[in-house]
Structure formats: C-alpha cells, structure tokens
C-alpha cells in the first residue's frame, strides 16, 4: 500500500546547489514517517510517473533559477502557480526529453496527478558539476525539512 503523501526530490548531488534535492531527501529519510514516502529521483524526471498512483499530495523538491531572489532563498508554492520560477529539471533532456513539468502535465491528462502538488525549491547560484553546494543553500536544508514535515502534517490532518 502506498503512502498517501509523496516527496519527490530532484538534483545531482555532485553539481553545486543542485545537490539541494538529494540533501533534503537524505534528511527526510532519517525521519521515517509511515504516511510519507520520500523518493530521490536524481536527474531522472521520467521516473516520477511510476510513483504517482493513489497519492493525495505530492511535494517536489528541486533547485530553481530565479534572478529576482538571492541564492539560498527558500521558495514554497503550488507547483502549477503562474509565477513559479524555472527549475533545474524543467528543461531536462537526459531522459529522452521528459521533464518534471512534462511528467506532471502527462499525469494530469491521465488523472494520475495528486490533487495537491507543492513545490519546495531553493534558489541556486550554480549547478556546476564538481562544485560543492554553497553555504547559503546548505543552511536551508534543515529549514526545508521542517517545512516539508509541517506541510505533510497539515495534509494528513486536513
């Protein structure tokens, strides 16, 4: 039986601030919760569809590009919000061209998309392979974990 809440984290752990998703997933794994499943999908957005069946809520965790905000700013919003910034994996081509957005659009067409899709993202300064994540982004990892846990609690109680 699936957990009703799915947290899907994206990112390359070896590529600068793009490590945000994997770091958050790792920290969430340490706080095991029966009603929340955490998957770290790395650089493979196309895998998301396999995990979506029978979920009531999804939280996407990724790094974002946003000129209006300083690197390390934590963003929380509805995934389909009109003002959502571009994510590192919005334009992913490494999985035959299926991005997170394309996966979720397809899921919507098929009636597989959970009613709630939340985005928790950090504004990235660089996704350069071989660079460690910046201090500003690392500091946001425990903050994001707390906020995601609060959000999941709220969803469970709703």
């Amino acid at each position, binding site marked *: 039986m699936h957990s009703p809440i799915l947290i899907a984290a994206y990112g390359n752990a070896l590529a600068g601030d793009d490590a945000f998703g994997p770091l958050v997933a790792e920290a969430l794994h340490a706080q095991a919760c029966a009603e929340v499943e955490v998957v770290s999908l*790395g*650089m*493979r957005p*196309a*895998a998301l*569809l*396999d995990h979506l069946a029978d979920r009531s809520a999804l939280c996407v965790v990724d790094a974002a590009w946003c000129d209006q905000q300083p690197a390390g700013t934590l963003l929380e919003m509805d995934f389909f919000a009109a003002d959502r910034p571009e994510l590192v994996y919005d334009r992913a*081509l*490494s*999985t*035959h*061209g*299926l991005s997170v957005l*394309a996966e979720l*659009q*397809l899921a919507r*067409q*098929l*009636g*597989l998309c959970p009613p709630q899709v939340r985005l928790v993202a950090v504004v990235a300064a660089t996704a350069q392979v071989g660079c460690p994540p910046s201090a500003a982004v690392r500091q946001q990892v425990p903050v994001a974990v707390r906020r995601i846990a609060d959000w999941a609690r709220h969803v469970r109680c709703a």
Partner: protein
Amino acid sequence: MSGLTRESKSQRRSIHVKALARVEGEGALNLTMRGREVEELELKIYEPPRFFEAFLRGRDFREVPDITARICGICPVAYQMGSCYALEKAMGVFDQIDPAIQTLRNVLYCGEWIESHLLHMFLLHLPDFLGFESAISMAADHGALVKRSLRVKKAGNDLLMLVAGRAVHPVGVCVGGFYRAPDAAAATRLARELRTCLDEMCELTLFLAEKIEYPALERDYEFVALCPDNEYPMNLGRIRSNKGLNVDQEEFGRAIEERQVSHSTSMHAFVRDRGPYLVGPLARLNLNADKLLPRAAELVPKVCQAVGKSLPWRNNFLSLLARSLETVHALELAADTLSKYVPPVRSRVPIVPRAGIGGHGTEAPRGLCWHEYRCDADGTIVSARIIPPTTQNYATIEADLRELAPQIVDVPDEDATLRCEHLIRNYDPCISCSVHFLKLSRSQVG
C-alpha cells in the same frame, strides 16, 4: 526547433532541425536538396564527447560495471553486462559463470528492455504515428492506452529493482555475477504482475499492428545481431548478419571499422570492406524470430498479416512492432523465470585477477553494445573500447534519410521536417551513449 529554406521550389531546399526532440541527447539534422537530389545530409551530433574509455584506464576491473552504467540512464544494464562478460573473459572465468547467474542476467536484461521499449514506443514514438506533438497531447485522446503502457513500463523498473537494487544505474551487478541474489518471495509477487502485464502487452502489440499505418521505406539493410543457438538474443551468442558476417564475440572489433566524421562527435561504424549496417530490434527479430517464446511467437503471424509483410521486414518503421514483440518475449521470460525462482547457491563467481583481454557484446534495447578490455596482472584496466549501438546505426540513419528525401520533395515544409525527425526516432537513438569520438592514442607525455 527547426527551420526550412528554399531558394526556389524546384531548385534548392534545406531542412534544418537544430535540436532533435524526443531522443536521448543532443543532435541536429541538416538536409539540403537540389530538386530530388540530396546535395548535403548531415546528422550532426554536437553533444560533447565523454571520454569514458579514457578514464576507465588505470581503474580496478571491479569498478568497471558501476562506471560504465553511468554512460546511460536508460540502458545501464547493457553497459554493465557487456563489461562484466568482457572482463570475465579477461580474467579467465567466463566459462565458470553458473547457469543460475546467466538466468538472472537475462531477467535483469528483460527489465531494461521492457522499461526502455515502453518509454520509446508509447511516450516518445507513438505520437509520431498517431499525429500528436507529444505524449501529453496524445494522452488527451488515448489516455487508457498510455495508462496501460505505463503499467507495463513500471513492471520493467520493478524488475530492475528486484534483481539489481534500483532502476537507474543498478548497483547489484558485479564482475562474476551479483552482489546479492533477489529475494524469492518478492520474485513470486512480481511474477504475478508480470503475467498481467504480459496479457496487456499482447493486446497493445495487436493495437500497434492493426491501428497504425506505417510509412513505406524499404531498404536492403545488413542486419547485425547476436545469434545464440537456442534462445532469443540478449547476453550470449555469435555475431551474425544476413549478408555473411559470422564472427566470435572477440573478433567483432576487427570485423567492423569505426570512422570519425567531421560533423559528429560520434563515430560512424561500417562492416569492414562492405558498408553501413543496422543493429537493434529489427535486426534481432529478423535474424532470430524462430527463437521467440510462445506468446510472442503466436503474435508474429497476426502482426505480419496486419501490416501485410512477412519477415524479414526491411522497413525500419516496423521496428516499433519488433520492440513490441520483444517486450512480449521479455515479459514471458521474466514471468516464467521468477515464478519458479529459487535463490542460487552462490550469487557470484570468485575472481583472482590476472593479465588478459576480453571482448563481448550484448543486446542493448537499441542494439548490439560491444566492449573490449585489456587488464594487467593485478586487474588494472590498461585499455578499454566500447562500441554503443547508436554509433553503429548513424551511417544507416543517414542512408535512410537519403532514401526518404525524394519522397518529401513535394511535401509541405513542416511535414517534411516532421517526417525526417520521425525517421530518426525510429532508431530510438541514444546520443549521449554514442559520443566519444576522440581516440587518445598516446597515454604518456614527455
């Protein structure tokens, strides 16, 4: 992204596809025609080379399957299997691999074929045949079809996770076998889902055969594939073609010739002293159809009747159906194996390093993927050579496009571009796998 220019309708016409969509990796197409004649045709692969063969040198042989798996996120098993078998030959244990380990390797490969074939057939290529821009728009009209295909695709991923730990870049594979054998109870559970998916896939195959109109483009290909004596090809067998190629695995690297071309970061491959050839599902099916398991074999005459062509098929647009039949075969093989699965006595063969050389190819979803490694006495890699399937198909793709070109002279611009892209997608090209054109011939400086 594409563009098209004409100097005059009857004179010079150029088609430029700057970034091929719905393929893995980055490539472009430039086609210039004068009247019905092709003046210039280049399938340009501009994705940067990745130097895997160079940085394998100096690594311990045990690291190779985990490194080569990173060549591709869609077909990592092909790179793991090719490197394992080649290194087992180099280490002198190839003939000692237990039958139970060979069986598990085939099951693992089934997972990769199922996952990769379904992704290509239903999410990337079917929109071309049904006249949609993408799987997303196709899903609005064919939602049930896409959902059924996603269920089968997921079964492939589950199979990869069961046998080798995870679906992308599996971690359970090692030279000599597997770090750990799958759990029997989990295997039994998955076998039930695979049976359900097998029934689904038989119906989906008939849908693809009966409801789709396949463009006509017949060519006299040289089909190259593994040809084992008693089973449909995956991991073992001599390498043969319909035009006389018949070599041991180790000889393949000398039987073909790789050439650099100025417009591509990937090399082009040719049968030595002959010409381009085709690897992949169509080649495998044409050379090995008599070895399909019963459910796929039963479908073959129905599919042939639906498309009005008996095997061998010489139209690569029909590779969609070859993939579908192979998926049926893979589901049946995996379901049969897992339903009677007993964990093997040992999951891997112990290896004592020695100096040696080994070459081996296995059948990646896109075709033959061949590896050769030379090791020194402590098992350090001295040299590596990897020939991915897409590299082997580039020259044939360009030849197909030359054949197609006269058919699109009078076709409206947008449709002409789309038909070229459609033809390229027939091959399910994995461009990222193929880019490694720079051969570093000198390893020491000074």
